[in-house]
């Protein structure tokens, strides 16, 4: 008979962390998203639309400074990450309601088809980040002419 130590805190928590990671991975894979959610404290909402020539990704980032956002494209996976910082904190403030979330965020999306990495354009207006990703030539849908 062997004794199993149940009280090894470190191991238990490591196991739980690993389990959470696996669950996250499972769900991310399911939703076609590659981000590691467990690292973020909040998640900006995202719209992704596809037109004939390009994909447009909109990200809700109210009160986030343009300099605190990073956009990368790696192997056709778009990652938007950054940090929403508190505005200047005054110690004489007495909060009556706190609903806004702050801290770092990261979201990744596999683009549905190949995009031109060097032609990506991003703008920030009224708290919405808009990223335009032109499709690569081979990814554009073509109408096939039928010969008679």
């Amino acid at each position, binding site marked *: 008979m062997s004794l199993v130590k149940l009280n090894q805190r470190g191991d238990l928590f490591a196991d739980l962390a690993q389990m959470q990671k696996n669950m996250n991975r499972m769900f991310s894979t399911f939703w076609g998203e590659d981000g590691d959610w467990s690292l973020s404290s909040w998640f900006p*909402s*995202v*719209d*992704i*639309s*596809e*037109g*004939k020539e390009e*994909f447009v990704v*909109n990200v*809700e*980032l*109210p*009160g*986030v*400074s343009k300099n605190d956002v990073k956009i990368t494209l790696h192997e056709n996976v778009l990652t938007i990450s950054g940090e929403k910082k508190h505005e200047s904190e*005054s110690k*004489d*403030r*007495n*909060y*009556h*309601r*706190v*609903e*806004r*979330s702050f801290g770092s965020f990261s979201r990744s*999306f596999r683009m*549905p088809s190949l995009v031109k990495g060097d032609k990506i354009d991003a703008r*920030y207006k*009224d*708290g*919405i980040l808009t990223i335009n990703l032109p499709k690569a030539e081979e990814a554009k849908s073509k109408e096939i002419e039928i010969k008679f």
Partner: protein
Amino acid sequence: MNTLAPLLRTLDYGMNRLADGLPDARRGMARRPATDIYEERDAFTVRLEAPGMDRETLKITLENGILSVRGDRTNNIADGIRMHRQEIGAGEFCRTFKLTSGIEKDRIEASYKDGLLTIRLPKAEEARTREIEIKF
């Protein structure tokens, strides 16, 4: 020492309504904009996260001690556009907060920047925190 009961109690009806009529499939639900309210010595500040609002629809009213904030954003999806992911809702929002008396109504200021709607409500002179000098 903070012996003052909160001067501002918020009553949030949390109304979250769509524009008139039935929701059509392309129009998501606008969510309740996350709001922070803080108090400083001479003013209250209400700050809402309301990115991408149609500016002309933003409306703030103060009536019978109820501060109402409304706005609307449209999401016009052209024909031939395919949505792969739609988390940002469109439509109208309305949030209401109950204020205490003691606001200088004529000096309320509001601004909209980077998707944040900030409303500053200066306290009336009699509502400001005062330190009372103790006489010996």
